[in-house]
Structures are given as C-alpha cells and as structure tokens.
C-alpha cells in the first residue's frame, strides 16, 4: 500500500452488514481491494472472490526438500564418509532414520513456510504497521477501495458505500 494510491474506506459496524455490502458493492461493478476485520468472518473470502492461497504447494515443496536433505545428510555421514555399525544393523539402516527424516521434513516445512509467508506479505522484523484505520483492531470493519484501479468515479464509489450501509466513508 504505497502512499501514491488513493483509498476510499467504507467503515461498517456489523459483520453481517459488511458481508452483504461486499456483494452489493461488487454488483455495481466496483473492484474491492480488501476488507479489514478484527476477527475472521466466515464466507468473506468467497464473497470477495479472492483466489485460494498457494501456500500449501510451497509447504509440499519445502517438505520434499527437507526429506531429501535429511536423507542426504544421514546417507553421507553414516554410509559414505564414516560408516558406522550401530546395534548390529546395516550401514544403510533405513528404519532408524525415519524419525530424523520426519523431523527434517517438518523443520524445512515450518521454516520455509514462515519465510515464504513473510516475504509474500512484505513482512519483516521491525516493519512499521500500515493500518488504514486503527479501529479495525477493535470493533469496526473497513472495506478498502482503490480509486486508481477502478473505472468508477470517487463520488460514485462513495455513494455506493453509503448505500450499502457504511456508517462512515473516509478518504485516505
């Protein structure tokens, strides 16, 4: 959300109302950028038409990577570099390694996923929060509409928001 964008914010005080407002505003051909809420609202993602997150695919990839890395490390240390007999088993004692492989998979998935999530959401330690309206952390629901990305005029958008039951319409 860079400062060059012009936002019109519709502020609502009820979660059902904002949910209805989303479909109403959309039906007028207005593109909604995002809706900010203090808590999750069931059906909001579907109403907004957001595509599903691709994070599970990333998780699977990181998991595969972790599995390969764990196996590579154990194979290199236990079979090639310094073969050791433990408990009378073969050098290549696969059942013994499954817990470690599992842990490696989980570790890579967890760290990889958190990192991916932070990068894709432009988050990093020390980042200043960009909050459009401080009340979205309390009891208000805010629909943000980017004027530059819409064909409708600012006045039309404001009117549509008011009609859909917004208690306030702000410009930012």
């Amino acid at each position, binding site marked *: 959300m860079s400062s060059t964008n012009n936002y019109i914010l519709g502020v609502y005080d009820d979660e059902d109302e904002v949910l209805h407002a989303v479909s109403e505003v959309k039906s007028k051909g207005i593109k909604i950028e995002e809706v900010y809420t203090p808590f999750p609202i*069931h*059906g909001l993602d579907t109403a907004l038409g957001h595509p*599903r997150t691709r994070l*599970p695919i990333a998780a*699977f990839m990181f998991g595969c990577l972790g599995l390969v890395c764990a196996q590579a490390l154990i194979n290199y240390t236990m079979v090639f570099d310094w073969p050791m007999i433990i*408990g*009378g088993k073969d050098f290549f004692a696969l*059942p*013994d390694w*499954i*817990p470690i492989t599992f842990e490696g998979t989980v570790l890579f998935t967890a760290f990889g996923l958190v990192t991916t999530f932070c990068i894709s959401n432009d988050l990093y330690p020390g980042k200043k929060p960009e909050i459009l309206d401080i009340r979205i952390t309390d009891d208000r629901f805010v629909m943000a509409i980017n004027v530059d990305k819409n064909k409708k005029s600012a006045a039309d958008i404001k009117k549509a928001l008011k009609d859909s039951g917004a208690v306030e319409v702000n410009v930012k």
Partner: protein
Amino acid sequence: MAGHSHFSPANVEEHFEFSSEGKKRIIYGFIAGIVALIIGIYLLSKGESGGHEVAAAGHEAANAGHEAAGHLSGGAASHQPAAEEHYDWTNRIWANVWLNAVFFTGISVVGMFFVSLQYLAKAGWSSVLKRVPEAFPKFLYVTLPILLAVFIFKGDVIFHWMHHGVTEVGSENYDKIIAGKSGYLNKTFFISRLIGFGAIWLILWNMLRKKSIEEDLVGGTEIFTKLVRIGVAFIVIFGLSSSMFAWDWVMSIDTHWFSTMFGWYMFSSWHVTGLAIITLTVLLLKDKGYMSYVNENHLHDMGKFMFAFSIFWSYVWFSQFLLIYYANFPEETIYFLERWEGHNKIYKTSEILNILFNFFFPFLVLMTRDAKRTRIFLMIACFFIISGHYIDFYQMIMPGVLGPHGGYGLVEFGMLTAFSCAFIYVISDELTKASLVAKNHPFLIEALHHDI
C-alpha cells in the same frame, strides 16, 4: 447464508427407506458369501486350497527362526505358535470367524466412540451426520456372541495359552512363561471381561440411542446434557476396555510375545476403519438422495479425520516396529520376523500392502484440500483404508493362529463377504428406526452453516 435457507430443520424429518430390493440384494450377497465359503471349506478339506505344499518349506524357515530365538534368550522361550503343534484344516475357518468378528466389533463400537467423542467435545459440525455412526453398535449384538462362542468352543485353536496343560506343572506341554501369565490369561477372567465390558458397551449405547431419539420428540437442551454424560462415561470405559480387548483378542494369540503399544495400535486400526465406514455410509446415502444437508464442509472434516488417523495408525505401527527393530531382542523380533520372512514368506506381501494401503495411499490421496471435499477421492481413500485395515487385522491374527497354513482363498473371501453383508443389513435396518437428521440437536443450526 447461501444455499441453506430452504432447509428448516424444525419441521423436517428424513427417514431412510430400506427397500425390499435393497434387502434382496444384500441377502443375495450374503448367500454368495456363504456359497463361496462352503466351496472354500470343501477345497480346504481336500487339501487343494490351503498352503499345504508350501507348509513343509515354511515349517523349516519358521523353525529356524524359533530355534534361534529360543537359543538367544537363554532357552527360556520356546516359541511355538499354536498352529505348529496340532494343526487341523478346520482351524483356518475358526481363524477367519475370529478375524472378522474382531474387525467388525471394532467398526461397530467405533460408531459409539465417534458419537461419544463429539458429545465430549461438544462439537457442532457432526450433528448433521451423527445418526449414521449412532446406528453402528447394533451389530455388536451379532459379533460379541460370535466372539464368545468361538472362544468357548474353539479357543484352543486361536490361543496358544488355551492349549491343554500349558499351565500345569509336570505336564509335557508345561510352559513356564504362559503359566506366569495365567493370572490374567485364564478362561474365567477372559469370559468375564468379554461379557462385562460388552454388556456395558451395549447398555451405554442403548441409553444413548434411546435419549437421542427422545430428543427428536421433546427438544430442549436437557437431553443434550444427559447425552454428554453418557458419552463421557463411554469414553472412560472404552479407554480401558479397548486396550484390554486388544491384549485379549489379538495380542494373546502370540502368547509369549508382548508389546506395550498394542492397545493403541489396535485401537487406531479400529478407529480409522470406523471413520472410513462412516464416511462411506454418508456418501452412499447422499448418492441415494438422502442427507442433502451434509455438504462438502462436513465431508472435508471426515476427510481430515481419516487423513489424521491414518497417520496416527502409521505412527503407532512404526513406533512399535522401530523399538523392536532397534532393541533387537530375539523374543520380540520373532513377531516381525514371522511376518516378514517366516513361513516361506507367505505373509510378506500382506505386510507390504499393509503399509501401502494404510499409510502411503491415504496420505497422498487425502493430502490436498480439494481431495477431502470431492466424492470420488474420499471413496478411493475409504476403499484403501477399509481393505488395508482388513489386511492389518489379518496380519495381526493369521500368522499366530495358522502359521504356515495361512493364505488368501475362498474361505477368506466368503467369510468377509458374509460378515459385510450382515453388517450392511443390520445397520441399514437400524438406520430406518430414527430420522436421519437429529432435528432437535441444539447444535444443528450451527452444523447446517458449517463453513471451513
């Protein structure tokens, strides 16, 4: 919200109709199973279908393992599975009755466990489909008497510790280890556990079922509170009894061997099979046009349950295996040795299929969100889980009872078909006795709007 507004639960009852054609088909299936069984038994009596030829070779391999085991553990344990001493071709029939009775007892009781668990957690989403698992324990009226009868009349076929003279000092069959376990493993105590816990299961189920149907007529939240109490009581009883029955019915077949994981292992196998059967029943009812209010969100939850408990089963199976493999005590490794390379390797294929069907296939099939919400993927997963856990129980029971004489043949196929058809008949009949939707369940509205 979208899609649900037309359904108002307060004035809707949906009754499952068990059509005479459906009844006929199931009875034909049952008869086909029995015919296959009879042909199988005939072939078995002629010695044409059993693994008699492989038996001789299998004998040697198994004996070599046993001798090594006995040797290394200081001669204390002479591992002789029941089958090797006095084998009779009819043993395979009784082993199969036992296998199916244990398997279907598990599926039936998991219906009760599932409903109790939902009440214990005060879960809302499952109230749309709770009438399905609620009907399952009816089949306990069939399986528990079968278990009791087989134990009383043919117990010495199944259990090593039931053999004549194993606990009598001075007898040629005297076995010090089994004699040491006779405080727990004796006929009276075994039968009292079976009858005692079985009766408590049935009493609690009858109470739950009665109250649940009463709720349809009366409404209010008072009955819900009572149902929660029954559920909690059952969970406590089941926690104890499922472990004990695992030791009694399955682990004590290999009397010398023991595993502290076994109660969990068998419970997880029962549970995931029960979950798959619940899902499959709901899907089939939906195919027939019932339960339109069960949508992909509820199926998604059932899919997650199956996925999670397949992994739980794998975790428990592997934990049991890994400790035994790692510690490498002969008296423990004999269990896996017997299944992997003993008896001329006749159990090796099943052991591999066991892991493939119960871990890898459900894990890969049910991994994505869309798969858990799609009918066909759930069907595939149910197929793998149900057949996989039949194989799992086969692996638990057959090597100990039959040793080198086991195998997959018409006897196995016929017995499984007969039991399955009986199960489907009894459960379908029980489903007709109450509305498919528990219309006065306090969480029904929440469940109808379930969205994940």
